[in-house]
């Protein structure tokens, strides 16, 4: 505190203040980045290296984690292995060096595809419905508008497990258990509340004069919405879509309770990537790394709108 009080004006902090503040923030950022970097590093370790003590910071990189992630393997006796033809590919060789042979592909690709289909499907629906509803709330006099908006927000306050109990029963009745369609509908319902609130904020900021001018030019309300409002709202729609994508991509509670195989996404799958004698950490780390990369890209794309997204549009700036 005393060091910082040298500043003549808080409006423009002195160079020293800035440097100290910067140093502390950078140290914090680097320290909190360590767990994620450690996981990425672990994905390039061999299983023995991953659980070595003391933890290995310098190690020979290996792709064993990735090979293990994408394959299922069986252990063979040395005699059996000797009878087999020599390994043809680098990954065969890698697996063979652990006295194993590749039995087939693992479930990771179907799970990844499920994640992609469910995330994109629900995002498309949520943003589509959300854009229409947000425009409706923004431009028209809707009876009980505030109550409806609060109702939409309040659906998000329910604990997912509480919602999952009747959804589980309902889906069992109508045959949506463990289906991609069921998960898409569920995630759409969860995301649409976010989409409505965010997009209403974005559309509120578009001056009504655009549509009014378009309607004076002979457009109907719908045409004006399509040709004057949507292009103006494009950035907001894109930001909202990324938020919905991230939510659906990361969601775990519904996925673990309502899917078991056919529609299972990555989050409930990753913890159950096991090798011999427990979790295969390099493979888990490899899955985590591949799973997290899209999120890192999205975070960078979204950085200007993050604040708005995480507060349901309550804080704009």
């Amino acid at each position: 505190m005393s060091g910082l009080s040298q500043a003549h004006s808080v409006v423009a902090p002195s160079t020293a203040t800035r440097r100290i503040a910067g140093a502390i923030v950078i140290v914090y950022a680097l320290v909190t980045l360590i767990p994620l970097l450690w996981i990425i590093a672990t994905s390039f370790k061999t299983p023995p290296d991953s659980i070595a003590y003391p933890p290995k910071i310098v190690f020979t990189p290996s792709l064993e984690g990735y090979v293990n992630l994408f394959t299922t393997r069986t252990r063979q006796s040395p005699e059996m292995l000797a009878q087999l033809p020599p390994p043809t590919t680098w990954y065969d060789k890698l697996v063979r060096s652990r006295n194993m042979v590749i039995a087939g592909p693992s479930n990771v690709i179907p799970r990844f595809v499920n994640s992609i289909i469910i995330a994109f499907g629900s995002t498309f629906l949520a943003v589509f419905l959300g854009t229409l509803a947000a425009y409706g709330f923004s431009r028209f006099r809707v009876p009980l508008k505030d109550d409806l908006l609060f109702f939409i927000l309040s659906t998000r306050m329910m604990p997912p497990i509480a919602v999952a109990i009747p959804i589980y029963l309902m889906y069992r009745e109508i045959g949506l258990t463990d289906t991609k369609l069921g998960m898409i509908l569920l995630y759409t319902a969860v995301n649409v509340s976010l989409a409505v609130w965010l997009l209403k904020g974005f559309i509120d900021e578009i001056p009504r004069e655009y549509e009014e001018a378009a309607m004076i030019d002979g457009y109907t309300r719908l045409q004006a919405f399509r040709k004057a409002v949507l292009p103006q709202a494009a950035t907001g729609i894109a930001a909202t879509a990324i938020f919905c994508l991230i939510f659906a991509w990361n969601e775990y509670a519904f996925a673990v309770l309502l899917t078991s195989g056919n529609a299972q996404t990555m989050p409930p799958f990753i913890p159950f990537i096991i090798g011999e004698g427990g979790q295969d950490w390099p493979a888990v780390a490899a899955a985590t790394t591949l799973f997290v990369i899209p999120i890192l890209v999205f975070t960078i794309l979204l950085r200007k709108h993050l604040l708005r997204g995480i507060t349901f549009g309550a804080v704009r700036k």
Partner: protein
Amino acid sequence: MTETTTSSALPEKLAGATPEVIARPIRGLSDKAIAWFFIGPTILLLLAINIFPLIWTIWLSFTNYRANRPNAEVKMVGLDWYHRILGDGDVWLAMQTTAHFVVWTIIIETVLGFGLAWLIDKKFRGHGLWTTVILIPMMLSPAVVGNFWTFLYQPQSGLFNYAVGFLTGIDPSSFQMLGSVRLSPWAIVIVDAWMWTPYVMLICLAGLRSIPDYIYEAAEVDRASPWRQFWSITLPMALPFIMLAVLFRGIENFKMFDMVNLLTGGGPGSTTEVVSITLKRQAFESWRTGYSSALAIILFVTVFGLANIYVKALNRVKQR
């Protein structure tokens, strides 16, 4: 559809009497029809996927239904489950565990988050880039985070234990963050703070940036000390934002499931069994559907009630 036609009748009549410019849009679909056409699907979806299940849950909470025995006869049990839950020591224990988790995460995240925001607001070179870097943990999947922290918390080889050992000289294999009754409630607090401090930081930063410079300039003219400026300008003016962050974190952490389920699964024993975990165990492991429905309703009412009280308090702060 009938409503659409009746409601468009009046505007149609008016259209004849209004100037050409205003009449034209009315001739398409009426605004009212468009409004319902636009808002309707969203409301319908939420009714089907949120409200209908909620009503079903309320009904189930008055019955002895068990989801693993769908063909058994369903009997109404009245308020029995509610009675039993409110007298159930395990539920109260879970509530205490949840309260410990919520209170400590909020304290740590608010102090660290506000501190970071205050430092970032000094606008050092590269603050934009570092802000983005700091935000990364909160964008990750809580489930995946919970899962990889079990790796960092491994007693022997885990990086967390090693780092603690390295810094304090304690033997890294002498303590188990997840296996010990004393430490595991803190293990989940640490991970949550790691993940969500950036969230509080981001909202606080918006609060600090919303304070106009001229207030500080006026304070400088009055020779208010930086200490005084902090307590009578910075903190009170950022307070609504801090409270907003606390509101969101409070609601989210009261419902916390993903991260804790993967990190400890409620264990060891039930030391980290927050209410969502209790709910999952009752609903999807013991299959006590009626009981867990009642618990779900109690949880929902609690979150909702707390949020409402809090929003009122928030509005009062804003008006000041």
